């Protein structure tokens, strides 16, 4: 199963631990990149670039304005396991002028989706 895991998975439900472990180990070893659609409540996890996950969600019917990128670090405390940073977050038209997601409400929505679909920082081993 692990060798056949796609590079990027679109999640409607909680990811299986084995799949998450595969995605983490495949690329960055200590973290996995992901993009959430805060309106549809789905996430695309994995891949080398947030732009790849973004493209997948756009093909899946997401609107770009609803997509926000971040990094997930397993093995960290819940308050530290999400890094709200991605180049796709630079969207001056929506008031976000930096890589870091600035709006507190949007950060909360991203965090809540992360906790539901990916994890709260639990170690994978």
């Amino acid at each position: 199963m692990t060798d056949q895991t796609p590079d990027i998975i679109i999640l409607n439900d909680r990811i299986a631990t084995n799949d998450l472990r595969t995605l983490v180990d495949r690329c960055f070893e200590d973290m996995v990149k992901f993009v959430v659609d805060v309106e549809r409540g789905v996430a695309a996890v994995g891949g080398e670039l947030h732009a790849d996950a973004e493209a997948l969600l756009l093909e899946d019917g997401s609107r770009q304005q609803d997509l926000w990128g971040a990094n997930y670090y397993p093995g960290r405390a819940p308050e530290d396991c999400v890094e709200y940073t991605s180049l796709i977050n630079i969207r001056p038209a929506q008031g976000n002028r930096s890589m870091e997601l600035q709006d507190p409400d949007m950060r909360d929505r991203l965090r809540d989706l992360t906790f539901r679909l990916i994890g709260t920082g639990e170690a994978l081993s």
Partner: protein
Amino acid sequence: MTQHAGLTEERWAQFDLDSQVLMIANEMHRTSRLLDDEEPGSRRRGYERVLRLTDLTIATRPRPALRRELLRWRDLIAELYVEDAAAADRHRAALRVLLQMRPAAARQIALLLR
């Protein structure tokens, strides 16, 4: 004339993407040491080298997603380049995100961003 002005696209394309990203990161790291200089000239020359290598990478890498991320990243460096004052925190954040574009480069984060 910037240091890499004579570097051609053809020459740059001979390097694999991991090497290209690491060489850009190396220039960013060198520029890190110039951020405390009161005179902005050396810092700006550092960013010129970074922009030059980034532009070469964009020109030689046709993958759309990568090109999009590199262009967004380039905008961050362009902002750092034109500003009068150094911005060490944003410089470090940009370097970190660059290294996170490639798994091989990401392994350098602990070394370069202690």
